[in-house]
């Protein structure tokens, strides 16, 4: 379980994450939603120790992320941020193989190779194995990054806006994949999402943030309803039930 206690982060005088204490459920998909500047990505970065915090603690299965050795945590939790500019020229297969670094430190075992092949197959990248990342489209590159993170084979997978750069088909494919990873492999997937319909359709649990604070959290039913959404986004959002799923309409 990921537990944050009073995490706070400020840039200059602006508080971006403000005293957030929350426990994210284990297994299944948890989505973090909220308007721009709510502190979603910052919180994800703090949880995954990419960013230091000014106050508070984060524990993953009881391990304090700021004190646990990097490679120990890297076998338990993986993180992919958005907008990954990679200047190193690597092939897809090389990139995915580096997902095994926390285990084998570069000397790949048979077990590592199996994980690499599986991750590549999971994201349908077989045909692109030998291609360099700078020769791929934005969506293909995003899938390669996700393959690397899955290859890391951690209980917790944190993804910051994984649907960026993806068209509808691949966005849906990505979310289905996360669903499979959660169901079949028993992973805990934490996503920052902008599209509340994707969040509604695929999440088990939703955390809503606004102005650096967690303003609401609970099951999809608790969050995806007009009253709760108005409090989060300051706008009227109609929620319809279609095929047993809640779909929000916010076009005016």
């Amino acid at each position, binding site marked *: 379980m990921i537990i944050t206690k009073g995490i706070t982060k400020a840039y200059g005088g602006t508080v971006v994450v403000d005293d957030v204490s929350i426990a994210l459920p284990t297994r299944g998909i948890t989505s973090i939603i909220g308007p721009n500047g709510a502190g979603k990505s910052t919180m994800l970065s703090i949880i995954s120790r990419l960013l230091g915090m000014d106050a508070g603690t984060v524990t993953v299965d009881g391990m304090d992320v700021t004190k646990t050795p*990097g490679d120990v*945590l890297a076998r338990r939790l993986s993180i992919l941020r958005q907008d*990954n500019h990679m200047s190193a020229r*690597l092939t897809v297969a090389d990139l995915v193989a580096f997902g095994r*670094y926390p285990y084998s430190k570069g000397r790949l075992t048979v077990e590592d190779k199996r994980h690499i092949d599986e991750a590549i197959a999971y994201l349908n990248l077989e045909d692109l194995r030998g291609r360099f990342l700078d020769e791929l489209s934005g969506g293909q590159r995003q899938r390669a990054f996700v393959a690397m*993170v899955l290859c*890391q084979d951690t209980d917790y997978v944190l993804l910051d806006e994984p649907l960026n750069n993806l068209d509808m088909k691949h966005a849906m494919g990505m979310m289905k994949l996360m669903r499979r990873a959660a169901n079949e492999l028993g992973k805990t997937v934490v996503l920052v999402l902008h599209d509340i319909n994707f969040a509604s359709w695929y999440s088990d649990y939703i955390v809503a943030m606004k102005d650096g604070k967690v303003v609401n959290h609970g099951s999809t039913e608790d969050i995806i309803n007009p009253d709760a959404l108005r409090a989060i986004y300051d706008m009227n959002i109609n929620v319809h039930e279609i095929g047993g799923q809640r779909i929000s309409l916010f076009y005016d």
Partner: protein
Amino acid sequence: MLRLPLAAAAVFALAIVSLFVGVSDVSIASLVSGGEDGRAMMVLLISRIPRTLAIVLAGMGLAIAGMIMQMLARNRFVEPSTAGTTESAGLGLLVVLVFFPDMPLIGKMIVAAVFALAGTALFLRILREIPLRSVLLVPLVGIMLGGIISSITTFFAYRFELLQSLGSWTTGDFSSVLSGRYELLWIAAALTGAAWLAADRFTVAGMGEDFTTNLGLNYRRVMTLGLGIVSLVSATVVVTVGSIPFLGLIVPNVVSMLMGDNMRRAIPWIALLGAGFVLVCDIVGRLIRYPYEIPIGTVVGVVGSAIFLYLLLRREARYG
């Protein structure tokens, strides 16, 4: 993988050619006959072999140093001479000359390495402070920083009448390499080996701080290791043969284009190509105005700046 031994054989052949180029008559025949009291053998042992070894070691070391710089700065266009590293090493040497002129070569090298480290760290610090939008601005900042440092060096060298000694470090030159005056370069060779052992770390660092942390590596520690290797290599080369510009830029870029940036695969190629490139430039420099010599720094500078321009324009065309 058969191509690697072939490349190694080609570099070896170039090294053999390099042994037999020069004013003094050294040929297989003169070596065998031992004429003129074994003079040919003496020239070979005291001058030619050290010179060729120096070329190979410096070429390998600088190419690897350039590669590490590029991975750490995450920019294709930095290398020790476009990041203030070389100039800082020169400033360090001047400080030694002014305050401790009798210090042995190894001491000079260490002081130069410390200055190189500080200068490179300053460069990376500046990069952190200024968010640069264009990849081309990064080397420009480095070149400016290098310009400032070397102008300070020149000013004090002028004041202390040391301009002439300074000249021997600012322009790389292998003609003064003799047995007993190049052995420090073996340090550069050892560091190349160390870089190969740590190859995966540098590839990971080249993916950026977030990826490095995610994979459980301490980014700061990888940076420190890389900077240490770059500074020591630059300092040993500047102390023994002087600065050789562009080398660390061209070789890793060519290898990256051909086979990508997975360092475990790329490092042997970068080392071989670095050695081969300097060997060719040195042979050209010795033949073009025979029996006179054009310093290696000049030859590499001319050839290198042309290739550098080509790389710049090509990259811009692709990503611009």
